[in-house]
């Protein structure tokens, strides 16, 4: 049985050291496509967190029953099931967010972050570490999506979480930031700055 120290480590690695978006560059499609506002980034992050926790739990529980040869299709069926649950839930409870995210909710199925955690972690570890790993990865993913969405929303719409704080009289919104190009610019610069900063810290 692993000690509480290693459990905490499994949780924390997803937040920064092995962050899915800024360190491993996984799940790029939703990270780029839906982060035109902080709210959308948060909603996508939460939906993904739900799916990665649920599917990692299931995969870890059945890891001894599933034959190696059919493990990938089995994981995909499980992941697709949870994604559909999340999609229906959003449609029923949060129709506005569901509409804003559009086809990107069903597309969580092919988010390699989730498949990656199932294949590399949950299928090889007991239940509790698998859940902590998934929780850390999900929250790390959500965090970066909110930051990305926040930066793009502030510069592109003059608002944050839908609250306008810079009217068009004082600040002309940079429309490009909420267009696809803005996603690439923001993510690229963000990763560049982070890598530059961590390299400098290592060398000193």
């Amino acid at each position, binding site marked *: 049985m692993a000690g509480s120290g290693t459990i905490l480590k499994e949780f924390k690695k997803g937040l920064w050291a092995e962050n899915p978006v800024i360190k491993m560059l996984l799940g790029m499609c939703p990270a780029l496509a839906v982060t035109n506002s902080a709210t959308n980034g948060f909603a996508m992050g939460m939906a993904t967190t739900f799916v990665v926790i649920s599917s990692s739990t299931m995969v870890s529980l*059945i890891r001894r*029953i*599933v*034959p190696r*040869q*059919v493990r990938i*299709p*089995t994981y995909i*069926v*499980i992941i*697709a*099931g949870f994604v*559909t*649950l999340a999609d*229906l*839930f959003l*449609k*029923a*409870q949060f*129709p506005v967010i569901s*509409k804003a995210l559009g086809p990107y909710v069903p597309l969580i199925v092919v988010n390699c972050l989730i498949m990656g955690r199932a294949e590399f972690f949950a299928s090889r570890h007991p239940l509790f570490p698998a859940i902590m790993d998934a929780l850390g990865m999900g929250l790390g993913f959500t965090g970066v999506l909110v930051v990305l969405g926040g930066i793009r929303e502030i510069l*592109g719409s003059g608002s944050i979480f839908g609250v306008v704080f810079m009217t068009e009289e004082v600040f002309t*919104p940079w*429309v490009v930031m*909420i*267009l696809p190009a803005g996603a690439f610019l923001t993510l690229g610069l963000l990763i560049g700055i982070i890598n530059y900063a961590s390299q400098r810290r290592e060398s000193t």
Partner: protein
Amino acid sequence: MLSVLSLTAVVVGGILAGFYQLVYPKIEANRLAEERRAIFSVLQGATDYETMVKTIDTEKGEEEIKIFKGLDGEGRVVGYAFIAEGPGFAAVIKMMVGLNINRETLTGLRVIEQIETPGLGSKIAEEKFEGQFRGLAIKPRIEYVKNKKPEKKNQIQAITGATISSRAVVDAINNRIKIVLKILEDME
């Protein structure tokens, strides 16, 4: 080997079918509430509506046309609403259109779905553009003018820099109006 995969699929399928039954009423209610809001926003004075469904033949096969008859508090018809959609600059633009009871002018327009370019084409969903359709004459057909004030009763001003989006709205309405007028005539 196959049994594990099949079993997983059956269990997941069963859970999804159950969950769908559970949330379907809520999803349907959301859709109806949105439809209701759109209809009332293009038909001033309406407090209730009746849905008339008519199937027509088009080049692409049979199509179901819904016309919403707007009713006021005393049950009098105040106008007709219908959904028009057509290809925009980025994807399909879907809108609710209100038609006057004498079937000569529009009573309003509300864009329901669009993903046109933010800051340019997306202005079709703003009051400044939508408002131009209130009281607009539909005969002989709706037209748009560029960079000047409309002179005729059946003209609107296109959004500067977003002619394609503006034209898409006008075309979609013109196309659908012909069908709707025909159906309303046939019903008398």
